[in-house]
């Protein structure tokens, strides 16, 4: 790898490094095809007519470029509603879990108290509980609470799943901030909530953003609870909408691809904007925990 870089004296090594460089670029390129081609195919299919999608030989770039599939979806109130539902649920989950997790993380970062260790273990172990185990009691619980087929049911469910990650991440961020900050606020007469809301939360913006993006993604992509805890079309989210489309129209592939593209856009945009924050947060969370 980098060995030959610093001792390029002899030409033979130069030559070998050339070969290695070419191989590395080819490797990346093949990887790019593996990752990217299916996605390009989705994009290209969304602009095709349904018959053209399975035309032989297949063509990546269509001559009859058409936005019909997108128009069909964006003018259908049922399908637009799937998107609205997903946005409402994902944004609510992000904001609410940031609020709840900040308070929890503040306690875990700034206080020593009995059962702290046990609470930490509880928070960490929650991440390993399989969704399928919770699905059956949730179904009963959500019906019992009268929030079956509502935003509240989905939002509460998703919050439980994202909270552990959010708390672990934010506790890590708060731990890096000096306690002198808190003391300064206390001297100025600020209470603990003031310290948290006015000082710690704004300073931890990169952490807050990466947690927010992550929770949005989880909520936007969730499938099994969205499937089980909602019943009517006006409460369905995008992943279920895509599946409904698959069942209904005996394979309008171009529409399904257009809906898929639209369904990926918010996550992709968030990721592109916040990539830097997100990657560092993600890896910190994954590696440290």
């Amino acid at each position, binding site marked *: *790898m*980098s*060995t030959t870089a610093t001792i390029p004296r002899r030409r033979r090594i130069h030559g070998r490094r050339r070969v*290695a460089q070419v191989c590395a*670029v080819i*490797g*990346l390129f093949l*990887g*790019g095809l593996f*990752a990217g081609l*299916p*996605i390009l*195919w*989705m994009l290209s299919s969304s602009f095709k007519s349904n018959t053209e999608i*399975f035309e032989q*030989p*297949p063509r990546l770039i269509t001559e009859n470029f058409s936005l019909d599939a997108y128009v069909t979806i964006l003018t259908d109130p049922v399908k637009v509603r799937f998107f609205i539902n997903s946005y409402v649920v994902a944004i609510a989950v992000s904001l609410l879990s940031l609020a*709840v997790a900040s*308070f*929890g993380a*503040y*306690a875990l970062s700034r206080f020593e*108290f009995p059962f702290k260790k046990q609470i930490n273990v509880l*928070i960490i*172990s*929650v991440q*390993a*509980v*399989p969704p*399928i*185990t*919770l*699905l*059956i*009691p*949730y*179904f*009963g*619980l959500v019906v019992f609470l009268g929030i079956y087929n509502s935003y509240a049911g989905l939002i*509460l469910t998703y919050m*439980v799943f994202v*909270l552990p990650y959010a708390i672990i991440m934010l506790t890590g961020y708060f731990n890096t901030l000096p306690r002198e900050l808190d003391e300064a606020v206390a001297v100025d007469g*600020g*209470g603990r*909530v003031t310290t*948290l*809301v006015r000082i710690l939360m704004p300073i931890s913006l990169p952490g807050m953003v990466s947690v927010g993006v992550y929770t949005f*993604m989880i909520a936007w992509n969730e*499938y*099994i609870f969205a499937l089980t805890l909602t019943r009517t079309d006006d409460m369905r989210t*995008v*992943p279920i909408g*895509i599946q409904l489309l*698959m069942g209904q129209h005996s394979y309008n592939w171009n529409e*399904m691809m257009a809906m898929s593209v639209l*369904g990926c856009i918010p996550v992709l945009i968030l990721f592109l904007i916040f990539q830097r924050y997100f*990657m560092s947060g993600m*890896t910190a969370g*994954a*590696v440290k925990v």
Partner: protein
Amino acid sequence: MTSAEAVALPSSEDVDVPGPAPAAPKQSSGRRALTPYLFLSPTLVLLIGLMAVPIAMVIAYSFMKRAITNPDTSFVGLDNYLAVIQDPSFTVSLVNTLIFCAVSVVAHFVIGLAFALLLNSDLVPVGLRVAFRAILILPWLFTVAVTAVLWRMLLSPNGVINYLATNAGVVGAPIEWLSSADLALPAITFINIWCGYPFFMISLLAGLQGIPQDLYEAAKVDGAGPVAQFVSVTLPQLRPVIISMALLDFIWTSQQFALIWMTTGGGPINATEVLSTFTYKLAFASYDFAEASASAVIVLLLSTILAVLYVRHQRAKE
């Protein structure tokens, strides 16, 4: 807990503790002891109400005769568990889950490590590395529902994959990848590999960037070539990350539901049935909530074993 309300109160040490005006230091220290719990209360209410209680509920259901559907339930001991374990579909699901997870995790690791090494290599110009990092991470950002629909299109009998495979002479005639009893499990495993490797890649990339350069310098002085450096420096340094990732990935992959449900639904004839689809069908297709609960508890126990291993590993690292 509304912050605005608390902020509006006259400020003092324990301003956010509701109750009468501050009194003797003794009492105040008692309140101070409560403060962390107040901050944690929304979290604890959610986690206990929506995690501990449901787990207790599902365990209770699993010992009952008819859960949820019939209010007139009676305790039946381990009957539901015996019924589940004796169900041949359960054994098939368990084996399928193990194959699906083992192959996925190994492939995620190998592909993730290969790409991470390329993305970290100074053989590739920086601009290219940044561009490819964005491309290589894409599959991970896709909603499972989208991944499922996309691959159903690509793998359909008259889809692109079959066109390429027949033209290259790999297969004689187009194949129904997802509805063939022999190929469906490999096919969904492949799809899962496609959408899961970036998580490994990103974590390993971070791990690689954290390896001190002087370790490589020292290895070079000792005359180690690229391969020897990889084996004696890179791999040992990445070991903790690799083990954490592998355990996490195994936990998550064993819980995969949406991808399988939307591509094969567990079929054809149980060929891709995994523990999650098996349990889901018991509950929401057969409405046998009691047996489904027993199955769900078994899944929970298996996950717990993995989780304990994971937590132990994390502790050992610290």
